[in-house]
């Protein structure tokens, strides 16, 4: 009897989880649409910028490269390799098929 009770209990829980998951899926779709609407709104895009100071304040004294690129631009980072001089080399490739890429070097100094 106890196992049967447990069986019913689990079935009820799984049913509730299923509803919860459907709810989350729906919320996600609505929110994605909402974000798209908000970011496509001309007024909002007019004010959708950050200042150099905003960024420099967040990354205290690092050298910063801001990359503005068309949608679909591919960024590739190979696994770091050891160079001949025994020093590791880190690489980033940027490739766009639909327009030029803008890179801005920022450093507070």
């Amino acid at each position, binding site marked *: 009897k106890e196992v049967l009770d447990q069986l019913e209990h689990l079935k009820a829980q799984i049913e509730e989880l299923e509803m919860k998951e459907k709810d989350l899926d729906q919320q996600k779709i609505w929110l994605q649409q909402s974000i798209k609407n908000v970011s496509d709104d001309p007024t909002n895009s007019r004010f959708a910028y950050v200042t150099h100071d905003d960024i420099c304040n967040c990354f205290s004294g690092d050298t910063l490269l801001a990359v503005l690129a*068309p949608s679909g*631009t*591919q960024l*590739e980072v190979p696994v*770091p*390799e050891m160079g001949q001089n025994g020093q*590791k080399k880190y690489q980033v490739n940027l490739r766009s098929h639909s327009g030029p890429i803008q890179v801005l070097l920022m450093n507070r100094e």
Partner: protein
Amino acid sequence: SCLTPVSAMTYKFNGSPSKDLRDINNMIKQGERM
């Protein structure tokens, strides 16, 4: 030491989730692909 195989991690502008960038950062920090 030579790392084989060399396989790059990618991110697509306006197409990939932020998590992909976090994975790339972890790879750079660890020196190998997780």
